[in-house]
């Protein structure tokens, strides 16, 4: 792909191509048994990669989650654990 002069971005939505999940060291694992559906993780996630499924289950889009751990830190019931990502 040719890079535009000065890397000018001429089409919207190109940031989606940059899958920042590759930067992650720890990934959030949600224990839905402990979740009280308060939505704090969804509100605080700076990358907007937590979504709420029908029925109140939360899931993380690991393509974009950088593993910052804010969701785990904010969760009032400690339902999110940051787990070292290993291959």
């Amino acid at each position: 792909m040719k890079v535009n002069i000065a890397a000018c971005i001429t089409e919207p939505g190109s940031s989606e191509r940059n899958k920042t999940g590759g930067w992650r060291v720890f990934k959030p694992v949600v224990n839905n048994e402990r979740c009280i559906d308060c939505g704090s993780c969804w509100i605080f996630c700076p990358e907007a990669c937590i979504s709420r499924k029908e029925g109140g289950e939360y899931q993380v889009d690991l393509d974009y989650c950088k593993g910052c751990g804010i969701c785990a830190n904010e969760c009032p019931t400690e339902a999110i654990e940051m787990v070292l990502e290993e291959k």
Partner: protein
Amino acid sequence: MPRRDVMHGSRAVAEAVRLCDVKVVAAYPITPQTHIVEDIAEMLANGEFDAEYIMVESEHSAMSACIGASATGARTFTATASQGLALMHEVLWIASGMRLPIVMVNANRALSAPINIWNDQSDSIAERDSGWVQIYVETAQEALDSVIQAYRIAEHEDVLLPVMVCMDGFVLTHTVEPVEVPDKEQVAEYLPELRLPHVLDPEKPVTMGALGDPNYYMECRKQQEIAMEHALRHAEQADEEFRGIFGRGYGLFEEYNMQDAEVVLVTMGSVAGTVKETIDMLGADVGLLRLRLFRPFPKEAVRRALSEAKVVNVIEKDVSVGFGEGALMTELKSVLYGSDVRVLGTVAGLGGRDITTEHVRQAIERAERALRGEKVEEVAWAGLKEEAL
């Protein structure tokens, strides 16, 4: 009709800005550049041309405002000197990285400390790697003409790089010289309207200056280097066409008395006048190569021009502290690598110390002694008060 007049070098620059129909000027005053932006403000207040004049709180902001303005496709100008240029440092790289054809005049002045408002060229030479085209001028007329040429070079679709026109502070900015002010219609004929490939426009949104991760950053830098290669060609062409229309041209560098000269002095800026004077006075068989385009460096052409020389002495108003010589000397040695030309250096005129014909004579004498095979100093500091060290 062109107008013949006498004026300060600063005024000549302001006239060029008016003639180029610049749309945005963002500037912060600093000695010895203040005249330039004052004169532009006066012209705007008098209705001599129409531009947005943005008063800012620092040079960092001045260049930032120029970047924003230039990104909308407006022809943009600023001027600075010394500490002001140093304060702009990080923003200079953004202007060139975003490939915006901003033109800036730098009124060359020494850097602190100790604080010093007088002329040397350390300020702009310290910015040699910032991705800006750099032109060094000898006269007020050349300053005026080079600003016009600068827009022509900067705005070419194959170039799109910012250009810094460097004129010696006080020596040129505050000296009254005869100047021919070109006709505005002729300048319009020479300088087509600015058209950028991408502009900030709410009707057609784009993102400029976004993240360039390791996948893209190197390509952006290489694109700048390619643009610099184009700039070399277009600077020459812009000068030739300028000569065709206005009857004056300067080349990428000026050669004076170079015919069969085995000793050649190399310098940049206004001191070339003193060097020519000295060569004439002594009737010396010594040439002068006055480099005008420092970035991109016309390596091939300089190598060719110096192919008959035996000893070169670089007189320059800067020093790379810790390397023991000026940057131009270092670069010239690099350009001449593999040839038999001996390169000597003369650090002169730092912080406004006068460079006299006697200093130039000494530089010639040292080069001639080297030519005869005598042992000489590689680098000498002209007019240094040894007893004060």
